[in-house]
């Protein structure tokens, strides 16, 4: 299953809804999208993973990169809605502590 990204900008918040699998084939497109938003000046990004069925280590790598990029640009990036496998992998990798927060 491929990855589809839908982006909605509110006043001060950007919601990126991801659908599909974040893996070796699709992680790059997610990375350039999130980094692009941050570089355009978006300060609060929420990545909705409710419709993502799989996220491998390259996907985690992208989320971490975007999270770090947000920190150095004085922005914030969080994820929401993770369930099933994706919730599991965020829990075992301890990334939930950083990525799952209220903005």
């Amino acid at each position, binding site marked *: 299953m491929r990855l589809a990204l839908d982006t909605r900008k509110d006043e001060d918040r950007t919601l990126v809804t991801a659908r599909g699998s974040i893996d070796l084939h699709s992680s790059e497109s997610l990375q350039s999208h999130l980094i692009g938003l941050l570089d355009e000046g978006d300060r609060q990004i929420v990545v909705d993973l409710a419709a993502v069925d799989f996220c491998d280590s390259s996907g985690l790598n992208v989320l971490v990169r975007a999270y770090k990029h947000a920190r150095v640009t004085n922005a914030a990036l969080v994820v929401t809605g993770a369930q099933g496998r994706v919730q599991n992998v965020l829990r075992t990798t301890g*990334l939930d502590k950083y990525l799952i927060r209220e903005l």
Partner: protein
Amino acid sequence: MSSSAESNERTWRGWMTFVAEASELLAGTLDPQGILALTAQLVVPRLATWCAAYTDEDQPPVYVWHTDEDCSDDLKHLLRIEGLPPSGPPVPWGNDLACTIPLVARGRELGAIAIGRSGRFPPDYFELAEELVRRSALALDNARLYAEQKSTSLALQRSLLPPELPDLPGFDLAVAYNPAGEGAEVGGDFYDVFACPPSEDGRTRWRFAIGDVCGTGPVAAAVTGLARHALRILGAEGMPLSDVVERLNRLILAEGDRGRLLTLLHGELTDQGELSLVCAGHPLPLILSPDGKVTECATPQPLLGVVEDIVFEADATKLEPGDVLFSCTDGVTERRNGEVLLGDGNGLEELLASCAGLSAGAVAATVEQAVRDYSSDPGQDDMAIVVLRALD
């Protein structure tokens, strides 16, 4: 168009197709012997009566192909006595017209192909043979480069695993390791088991690690090397387990852009079966009891390479006689068959429960086999497994 022009056109088209097909065949193989054999078979009988392929002109030919097999020995004999025919257009040689075409690619001489025809040797045929040998030389050079890269990767891969495993009296230890595919790229999985200085109360202890660096290739391998050596050096200094993981996290972050995410299970085992475990973002280790019960035996902590100020804590547990500690990388749990993964639900726990009573080696082999059989697709990810069993 006159009929002779038409037939010329036909012949020309035929040769073009021949050269195109030959190129495709040659480009499709990365085995030097195979390339030479293929070249010989492409040349004979279409262009020449015989062909001899050399990788070193001072050595006997590696391939001799003759339309008449009975003449092969005479030809080899003649080549031995006369040496190779001169290079350049064919000249009388023995009873034939023959020449040698050097195998040269990217300025490097890789051998030579000698060809001969009994009777006439049209210039077109010589030119086509030259063209074919040029392509064959390129294919040989590609094969050489590929073999070089593969052996570099293999050497690098081996350097990331311990040269040998220590003997653990009272325990049964087994590991399984499968780099992804047979490609020329180094994977990111590693494991290690080594003896540590005795604890304060004089107990013998060992440390073990299983980890997965995000990504593959030399950059990932560099992080793997850093991790494995850091664990050994800091362990030999007697640094507590959780501090070692903390230090490694900082070392990886200090690599900056060259750093990679690392999931790591680091453990310490005493001769009494006491276990300390730090599971940093790694698939949780499981303990299989002799009665088939499977339990998670560590709490998840963050993976390494994300942020600096993480405090890790070691989980303490005990390996009772007959208990098996099982740890693996996500190449096991994320093994895919269509939409489902081996680790979905309690996939791994159930698989492990079926291993109750088995030796460490048999547990590792059972899981390895289950991963292989899970799908008909060849796996795309590396896989490492470390199994420790307390003897009864």
